[in-house]
């Protein structure tokens, strides 16, 4: 039997509630949460969908570390499992946090391919070699789970900070050989809430469930932004 201590919130007050869950080998935290919901406390609210680590819904703090509940094995966590909602996000109910702001920041960096010859009616195949694809491919794997944002100390101190996920998305497009919108994104990235707020705590890369390396993306974006500003200052 494993004891689950869950931090609950009903809109007014926050409190802990414990449940005993019969855990067997292979059971994930998400399965345990469903077990609790279906057998003990059906008002327990959490987000979940794909249960295979690709939709990004179930990111939460498990034993103080943000993880995807569907990918975390219960029996590796010890006798007591503490489950809490992600830090740096406003809690709506139980383990569900406010994500509108997160997606707004993602939208703010213009995370789409910008090309002058954008032709909806008659698209033409753009060539891209496997090497060019590898330049940015790892940054396309971001599932927007919010784990990186929850451990970022810059995001903790400043609500408007764009955050590692948004800036990884910005870099993903800047490094895509088909993109022509780098200038616009560099301007957004060098705003007061952009890359220059990052001081390399690097915790984001440590907790990313998909090993997207957001800290690296932010640094590469800084490098590109800095050179671009330098070039424009020197009139190149």
């Amino acid at each position: 039997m494993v004891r689950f201590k869950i931090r609950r919130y009903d809109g007014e007050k926050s409190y802990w509630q414990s449940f005993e869950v019969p855990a067997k080998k292979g059971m994930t935290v998400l399965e345990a949460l469903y077990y609790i919901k279906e057998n003990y406390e059906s008002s327990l609210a959490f987000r979940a969908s794909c249960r295979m680590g690709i939709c990004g819904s179930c990111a939460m703090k498990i034993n103080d570390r943000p993880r995807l509940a569907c990918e975390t094995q219960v029996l590796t966590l010890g006798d007591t499992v503490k489950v809490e909602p992600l830090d740096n996000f406003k809690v709506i109910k139980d383990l569900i946090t406010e994500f509108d702001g997160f997606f707004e920041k993602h939208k703010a960096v213009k995370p789409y391919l910008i090309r002058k010859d954008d032709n909806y009616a008659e698209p033409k195949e753009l060539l891209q070699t496997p090497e060019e694809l590898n330049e940015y491919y790892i940054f396309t794997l971001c599932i927007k789970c919010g784990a990186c944002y929850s451990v970022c100390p810059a995001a903790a101190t400043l609500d408007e900070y764009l955050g590692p996920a948004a800036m990884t998305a910005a870099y993903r497009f800047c490094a895509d050989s088909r993109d022509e919108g780098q200038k616009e994104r560099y301007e957004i990235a060098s705003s007061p809430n952009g890359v220059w707020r990052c001081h390399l705590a690097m915790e984001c890369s440590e907790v990313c469930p998909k090993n997207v390396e957001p800290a690296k993306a932010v640094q590469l974006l800084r490098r590109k932004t800095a050179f671009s500003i330098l070039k424009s200052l020197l009139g190149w």
Partner: protein
Amino acid sequence: MEHDIVIVGAGIAGMRAAIAAAEKSRKLSIALIAKTYPIRCHSVCAEGGTAAVLREGDSFDLHAWDTIKGSDFLADQDAVEFFVRECPVEILRLENWGCPWSRNEDGTVAQRPFGGHSFNRATYAKDRTGFHEAHTLYERMLMYDNIEIFPEYFITNLAIEDGAVQGVSAIQLKTGEMEFFEAKAVIFATGGAGRLYGFTTYSHQVTGDGLAIAYRNGIPLKDMEFFQFHPTGLIPSGILMTEGCRGEGGYLLNKNGERFMKRYAPEKMEIAPRDVVSRAMWTEIMEGRGIEGEYGPYIALDLRHLGEEKIEERLPLIRDAAIKFAGVDPVEEPIPVKPVAHYTMGGIDTNVRCETAVKGFFAAGECACVSIHGANRLGANSTAECLVFGRVAGEVAAEYALNAKQGKISAEFRQKEEKRIFDDLLGKSGDESPYQIKKELNETMDSNMWIFREERGLKEAVKKIQELKERYKNVEINDKSRGFNTDLTSAIEIGYMLDLAEVVAIGALKRQESRGAHYRLDYPKRDDENWLKHTLAYYTPEGPKFDYKPVTITKWEPVERKY
């Protein structure tokens, strides 16, 4: 709230429809409603690829023939001919919008072999094709000012008055309040109904909401008894091991280490269509040649001979998932798999323009049935269908909305809907747990409505489902609060699933033949004389009423389906 077009469901089909409608006219206001944030849709789980005729040596007729033969000749051939001609341009559009397709050495979009296709035409993005397509569509959608996204709105009903659609009602999950979206046109792109089954590849959220709501409002559902069972579902979770594993050369082995597919499909072997492979695997298991394991007998999916480099290059997600969820590294050991419920061939009856029986109401994607896939879907055709028909639905709805008058939802409808949900369902007391009902539903579907069906089992399933529907009337929802009440939404979902299960079970009982994914042990032959027709199910308070309509045949007469 008033909009020109309301799209329910933000998967690949829904998002593609939104973009198509926005491109048609920037003056149209489009609302995209979904019960999760758009990129949390089930479409992101799609892995293998999207089929399209792109290169020399391939032809539209060949793709159409593969699809029609794969469908066991139940597909409407005029729709298929239209469909295959629209796939290539969708691939190129996605490419222009940033989709990271895997490439050949010369920089062109790569394609790989896939089950049932006679040409290597599945374009892919490693083995996360659906994930990348969905993210690309979402990111492109952000460019349009006239698309407003409403995430975490749970749809409860369609408002139809005077024979035309007026809008939809939905619960805003955050506040728990009922919202009414008035519109000129409504598109449903709500996905399939796989969570009817216990062992399934589907996400938790795929509970057939749109299908049930359309059905309850008198719109017929077509061919619902055809459920696809994908050969390779990981044990015990049901997580999909893409068909691409076999496309790249993987083997299926029984307990004697034999590649048993040569006895069932000697030409295509492991890359025969899914229904053929699933039946072969299940037969092996039933005849005692499955490998014994902790969770019952299974078949081994062997990728070891592909080598680590190829697996990392083409199937990285599979390797990751097998290690994380089954503790098995495909480079070292074969993966334990079993056939798993995977796709709903049936859906809301539409024509090739995504129009339904109700004016202003359209459907696209898995929740619609045009029918392209007939009795069995080929791999890599579903994401293609979502893209093509998402686009068609968006354009047709936009054309319709430019000339239609604004929908108005009457006060009477609003009151009735609020009462139905908040008083009659949430407020009442009872002694049944909705989760217990779901568990029993899953058990019945898994045992009686699986790959091999026969009359006694089907009758038992129908009886059980009707019993569960009675018990559901007595269900109590423990969480009485308003804000983010997942207890309420789960209970509503279970209600949807019970309605759909009845349609599926009775439809399967009535269809006395075997075709595609629907296999009857008591009627094992395909019966073109009596059964070359689509099943239509209409809602009545006593249960579904059935009717049939013929299949459209243009070029290809049905022949025996051998691989």
